[in-house]
């Protein structure tokens, strides 16, 4: 409780809130990307031959030349930690005793942000080679949460 709320003489205020619910359609690119995760346990990117860049997750356009992309490529499920952090706050700002270990792992010229598991926090470093651990196929729903976490390759 803030000091303001504890003070009975605090100025009056009205409190309001709003339930916000939206649907976010995956689109053509997202549909293909998440289907490959769900059905095949694969990470797909799209290649722009003109710019020589591979977008991961795959998108249907190149943000550099704005050309349409239709060359889908399997980029594998291992990559390197490009950057990482140990996060000590929850979604709502409340503190965490044990940090979340989060990494951005490079695939192609893009990558994926996710949790890093099966690892001691002190051992994580930039450049470390990791692989994707998918949830069992029966539990996958076609979302980023079909990835359980990354884990180091031993």
């Amino acid at each position: 409780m803030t000091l303001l709320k504890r003070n009975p003489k605090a100025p009056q205020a009205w409190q309001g809130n709003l339930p916000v619910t939206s649907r976010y359609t995956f689109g053509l690119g997202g549909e293909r990307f998440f289907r490959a995760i769900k059905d095949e346990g694969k990470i797909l990117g799209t290649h722009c031959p003109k710019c020589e860049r591979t977008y991961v997750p795959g998108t249907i356009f190149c943000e550099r030349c704005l050309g349409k992309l239709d060359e889908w490529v399997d980029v594998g499920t291992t990559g390197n930690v490009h950057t990482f952090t140990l996060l000590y706050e929850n979604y709502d700002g409340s503190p965490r005793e044990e940090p979340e270990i989060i990494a951005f792992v490079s695939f192609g010229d893009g990558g994926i942000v996710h949790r890093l598991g099966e690892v001691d926090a002190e051992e994580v470093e930039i450049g470390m080679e990791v692989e994707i651990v998918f949830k069992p196929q029966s539990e996958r729903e076609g979302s980023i949460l079909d990835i359980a976490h990354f884990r180091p390759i031993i």
Partner: protein
Amino acid sequence: MNERVAIVGVGWAGFRPATPELSYKELMYDAAVRAYTDAGVNPRRDVESFVTVAEDFHEGVSIFDEYVPDQLGAALKSMQTICGDGLHGLATAYMLVRTGQFDIVAVEGHSKASNLLTKDEVTAYAQDPVLNRPLRFNTHFVAGMEMNRYLYETGTTRAQCAAVVVKNRFNALANPSAAYGADLALEDVLSGPMLSTPLGRREVADHADGAITMVLASEQAAQHLTDIPIWIEGVGWCNDSPSLESRPWGQALYTTQAAQMAYRQARINNPLQVIDFAEVDDIYAYKELQTLEALGFFRPGEAGELTADGFTTPAGELPVNVSGGSLGWGHLFEATGLARALEVVLQLRGEAGVRQLEDVEVGLVQSWRGIPTTSGAVAILSN
């Protein structure tokens, strides 16, 4: 067309962690009236167009621009709200004057952060809803990962980032408007709790409430209104690819591009030679170092060492965030860019009180829209 545009009036109110006695409208009204008085204009008669910057989720209402005209004197006048930082608003107001359609334009930015009771969730709502938000990470993780990569690529240290906190919060002690002035030792910053490694809790600006209004005028109108017009020599803005998956993690290229746009207009080739002082992003301490390099003042990896050596203190060769910055003033949401511009205006007018810098002619303002954005703006001002 109006070739030159000047800032002829500034007004501000608040700059406190909370303003429980005021509504956001009253806060905006306070700042606006001060700016109009400072400029010597009657808003109902003289100000021809109005710009404000706001984000609906920060305001707690939909279509916020419906809530703006009355308290600024803009009812039944040309006005617009843009979704950007205060510097984007300044750039828009500048362009309105440049068109020649308007001679006097007001721009406003404000923060009533103390009224937003679920800040972390609102910020998290800016994360990509499909790729990132389902993971339910506090959005500070973006800053933690960016800082980690920045340190890795440049060899900058955590202690050098902490030196930014020590400097800016000490600077804030000389700024009567700043809420978070403090005399800290490096160790006080480094020994604080971790937020998102390598980022410590004490390297993050706390929020504050405040409102700022500025009055811009064409050269002709400015000559009638003031003896000390502050000229806008250049403005630039830029957004990088916003996705966490395709952005460069170590550098702020959007700031580099925004600066180059502003430098071109202001005909600046060597910023360190021409620019006397700067007010730049420091919502997270490492951002000040990354930004100074992106602006071309220093090469990548130099800003940390130079900061630790005192190069950017008020007595140094390039004073940075003499106001105290966001770390000292508080994070003012979209008003942040205008708060930085305000300090540059006051310094260039010679009205900065005990923190007045000597012989300053050109100042740079830079601002970033905060996590998880890759959006920045730059303005060059001179007296």
